[in-house]
């Protein structure tokens, strides 16, 4: 099967998206803002639909929409946890409604729009793969370089600030990473299912370890298993790849929940 370029691109894209989505997912999960990922994915979906409507590349639309979403969400994300998820849910509902309104205005068959909903890893182009690889490299490097600052912000924002950590910069960086991650991965699993790959591998890893480093590493492994496993199963059973990736990640989470140790948490 490796003689086909589209399959090689699909495999590479699946591995990269598995790593990228799970690393960003850990950040969002531990900041207690998983809705931020959903919000971003809906914004990216809306941007991509508008881009298709006006005749530009969907990735350009998704990136623009995510950049605008970062600016809109920033005041909410800066707050502590209380109330943030409620506000994000409102933004999420609004962007989803708008996306479907614009979709209804698309002329002819809506196959390209449907691809953005369900994902289409087999149609990944070299340019899209290069963008995904670049985003994965940058996000991974940022997590490695700033892991001490990230740990401090995840632990407690006030403590981090008093310890000399630039908390606003770290939070803004996480938001930008979330926007770039979702935009770059939209083609792999689609706007509706991307949330599963952001949350499930990260949550599964969280249930299995008490080390931040291992949470990132395990999440990346689970992300790769979800995307590659989903691609392989969908190939042999002729099922939509994005949907099967989401299902595999859900199974991994259930297995981790059963095997995990956090249920005996002391506090």
């Amino acid at each position, binding site marked *: 099967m490796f003689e086909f370029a589209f399959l090689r691109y699909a495999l590479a894209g699946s591995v990269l998206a598995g790593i990228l989505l799970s690393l960003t997912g850990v950040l969002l999960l*531990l900041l*207690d803002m998983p809705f931020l990922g959903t919000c971003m994915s809906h914004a990216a979906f809306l941007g991509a639909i508008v881009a298709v409507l006006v005749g530009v590349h969907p990735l350009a639309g998704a990136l623009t929409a995510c950049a605008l979403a970062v600016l809109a969400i920033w005041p909410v994300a800066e707050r502590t*946890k209380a109330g943030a998820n409620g506000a994000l849910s409102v933004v999420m509902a609004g962007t989803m409604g708008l996306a479907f309104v614009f979709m209804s205005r698309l002329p002819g068959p809506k196959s390209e729009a449907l691809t953005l909903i369900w994902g289409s890893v087999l149609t990944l182009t070299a340019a899209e793969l290069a963008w995904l690889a670049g985003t994965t490299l940058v996000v991974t490097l940022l997590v490695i*370089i700033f*892991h*001490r*600052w990230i*740990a*401090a912000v*995840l*632990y*407690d924002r*006030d*403590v*981090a*600030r*008093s*310890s*000399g*950590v630039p908390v606003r910069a770290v939070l803004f960086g996480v938001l930008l990473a979330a926007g770039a991650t979702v935009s770059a991965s939209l083609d792999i699993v689609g706007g509706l299912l991307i949330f599963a790959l952001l949350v499930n591998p990260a949550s599964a890893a*969280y249930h299995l*370890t*008490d*080390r*931040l480093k*291992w*949470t990132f590493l395990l999440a990346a492994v689970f992300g790769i298993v979800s995307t590659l496993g989903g691609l392989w199963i969908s190939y042999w059973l002729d099922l939509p790849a994005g949907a099967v990736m989401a299902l595999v990640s859900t199974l991994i989470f259930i297995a981790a929940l059963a095997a995990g140790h*956090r249920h005996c*948490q*002391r*506090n």
Partner: protein
Amino acid sequence: MALSLTILDQVSVTLAGRRVLNAVSLKLHEGDFVMLRGANGAGKTTLLRCLLGMIRPASGSVQRALDPGETGYVPQVQHGALAMPLLVRDVVAIGRCAHLPFWGGLRPADEQAVDLALQTVGIAHLAKRPIRMLSGGEMQKMQLARVLAQQPRILLLDEPTVHLDAASRHEFIALLNHVFQTRPMAVLLVTHDEHAVPPCCTRELTLHDGGVREVGQAPLPVQPSTSILADYTGSAERSGKGA
């Protein structure tokens, strides 16, 4: 004369339409150990947040002779933070953030500071324990170790003993007392606890109706009893040797 580290000058803060602090003035000098009491909602935490630079006052000014990272902060027991996948040593190492270069992890000197901070508060044996496994008392000792590793010039504590049992409370206050004796810094301890008066407390204040009032002079400081605390900063002349 002792160096003024932080000065609140006629600071007023209004939150959600309510005047929480009303023309509050407060100076913290090196060597001060100030206790601040007040009823719930009196504005104690707001005052701390002003000192930390997290709240901008409606009027008045906050002057700090400090660099970023020179203010240590011990919050109340943080049950939310306990869920983080971190070990005790990871949290204590957060205190070194201000001393670290832009790139890279802990250097040998930072590792040493973390080890010494853990030993100083007597939790070296918990270094590899996940923070979710800590009791409230152990959690607050870890916080103290974190700020010791930070080596701040001013230490702000927001009701650090509020969820602790009597034994843990007394242990924490005794530890804080010892730490203060061996570090040249200022401490502001916000507390409800009538019995949590460290011997080294130099001033006692109350916050009422948005204003700060001096309660009275506290007893003279006592000398520290542990050599390890003196080792921490090498300030033997401030500790047992000087007695």
